[in-house]
């Protein structure tokens, strides 16, 4: 624990547990369904699994990618976690830390991005390809892109999968008999990607410190620029009224309602101390954003009031991953230097 006098002001002290996991926290995901376990995918190739109900006990250690690194982690379709690694493997990690290989789509290439939907479909991006698998691990199809995929996600219904790449993004129907993508074009290199909860907008983060968005109804472009650094993390609020983003010295929130974000200025939360926001996660019900910063600070901010609640103090490495559980009672975060915390925010 740090020696700062205000430690007790941070929720981690009063309502949380923390661990030094010893390796870069690449991704955090909470199990779907009733299990409620939280997985931390690490740069040493392991996935650590914590249970909020027994958070003080030892966190299980799953050797997901031996000798390698976990590059992407998400909640699997039906409980457990899905992890992609630089060993070319796509594995499932169960809540008890059992590891099961779903596929090894590559030998000397990496599984860089993974996504899953509760309907049972899973996606793994390897180079230019996105491989889709069903709930049993059977390969469904491989979607080809013009260049390496920078990010992949499903829409809220799991009907479409979106992949970002050089010069735009591609939108595919998972169940289509004939695979033909809708290509959303915009010059430049696109990485992190999100689809709005109502499925009407796609937004990507670009190499050039800007976001680009497409309104799917009419293909209208949205340029969201002005960031001093690259946006790595972006997330829509539960009902899709706002898009929260990292990359500035505040949490930049774009309005996706009332005609926005076109012609509207973004709202900035929790800014002012000159440290870049590195990770964001939106509460699953309320318009509250959790944000992590390059100095290790983690906080919550309510969009309507701008009110800020500190969660974890600076000093333990830049925040690299952040995630709410499905019911919004717990928040987990991790840093580049391997510090991880889990905070209980439920009413007491």
């Amino acid at each position: 624990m740090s020696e700062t006098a205000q430690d007790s002001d941070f929720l981690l002290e009063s309502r949380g547990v923390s661990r030094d996991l010893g390796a870069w926290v690449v991704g955090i995901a909470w199990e779907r369904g009733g299990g409620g376990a939280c997985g931390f995918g690490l740069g040493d190739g392991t996935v650590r699994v914590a249970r909020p109900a027994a958070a003080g006990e030892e966190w299980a250690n799953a050797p997901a990618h031996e000798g390698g690194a976990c590059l992407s982690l998400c909640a699997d379709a039906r409980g457990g976690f899905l992890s992609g690694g630089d060993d070319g493997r796509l594995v499932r990690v169960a809540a008890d830390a059992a590891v099961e290989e779903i596929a090894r789509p590559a030998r000397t290439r990496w599984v860089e991005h993974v996504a899953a939907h509760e309907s049972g479909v899973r996606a793994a991006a390897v180079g230019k390809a996105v491989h889709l698998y069903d709930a049993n691990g059977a390969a469904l199809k491989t979607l080809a892109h013009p260049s390496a995929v920078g990010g992949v996600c499903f829409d809220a219904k799991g009907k479409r999968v979106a992949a970002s790449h050089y010069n735009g993004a591609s939108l595919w129907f998972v169940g289509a008999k004939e695979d033909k993508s809708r290509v959303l074009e915009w010059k430049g290199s696109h990485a992190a990607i999100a689809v709005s909860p109502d499925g009407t907008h796609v937004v990507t983060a670009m190499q050039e410190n800007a976001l680009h968005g497409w309104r799917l109804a009419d293909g209208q472009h949205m340029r969201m620029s002005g960031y001093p650094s690259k946006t790595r993390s972006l997330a829509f609020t539960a009902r899709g009224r706002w898009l929260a983003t990292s990359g500035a010295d505040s949490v930049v929130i774009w309005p996706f309602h009332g005609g926005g974000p076109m012609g509207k200025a973004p709202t900035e939360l929790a800014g002012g101390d000159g440290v870049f926001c590195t990770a964001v996660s939106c509460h699953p019900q309320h318009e509250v954003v959790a944000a992590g910063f390059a100095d290790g600070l983690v906080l919550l901010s309510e969009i309507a009031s701008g009110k800020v609640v500190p969660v974890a103090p600076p000093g333990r490495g830049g925040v690299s991953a952040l995630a709410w559980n499905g019911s919004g009672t717990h928040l987990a975060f991790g840093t580049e230097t391997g510090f991880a915390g889990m905070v209980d925010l439920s009413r007491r």
Partner: protein
Amino acid sequence: MPDTTPIPVTVLTGYLGAGKTTLLNRILSENHGKKFAVVINEFGELGVDNDLVVDADEEVFEMNNGCICCTVRGDLIRIIGGLMKRKGDLDGIIIETTGLADPAPVAQTFFVDEDVKARTRLDAIVTVVDAKNLPARLADSREAEEQIAFADIVLLNKMDLVSPDEAAEVERRIRAINPQVEIRRSTKSDVPLEAVLGRDAFNLARILEREPEFLSGDDDHEHDSEIQSLSFEAPRPIDPEKFNAWISGLLAQKGQDLLRTKGILHYRGEDRRFAFQAVHMMADGDFVGEWRDGDPRRSKIVFIGRDLNRPQLRRGFEACQVEDTAAA
């Protein structure tokens, strides 16, 4: 705690069959106790089974800033980002480019991407050339010439196949393109690994540390290659404002033809040396410590590029000097 010192990155270029793969295999198989990640292109044929060999497609991306020579390797941005997440166990990264690759996008990636810049440092561009076939390659390939122009170190390989006269002529050709380059002769890429790794050649503090062995100071030498190198000296101190205005205009206008630019400058009233380097339009500069006692405080700039106008560049550089009477 994971280490935060930047990881050195060595870029290995060279025409097909020059001996890049032989060198890579030696680096990976020799018992040096170090751990390297090697990024190869998909046509590579590495004989060593290593956990840390990463296949990459050379994806050259244009930056969306309206400047067409501003290209980066998108795959490297992703791969370096991934490698940084491993537990701090890497001693270095080696990037092999395909034989036909232009080295500029690789080098520019280290100037452009903030994450790459923060976590790694470009150590050196090493170009492996085939002593026997280089003259033919220079005649028929723009890339072979560019690879030499960009190099910090040229490995003049297959020395067993050439006569001493042929070797001298090949070296002369290399120096005509890049007079500062360090040339190491080898057979089967057999140089000590310290000769190619850990060289710190992109460190601003070491810019122009090597005196050109063949100063192309005279206009009368023959131009047998399209790429040439010009160097200029200025005896009087440089006015930083004039220099900035001149060099930014020059790089913006002529950056496509300027492959590498390096300078050591004596700024007016400043006891520290200012070092400057650029790859095409991307520039970087900083103070790098004081002038050594007894060393003449003279500013020097070297251009390697195509279609360079010597009188114009000389006049431009000389005009950045402070007025005669105002010498510091």
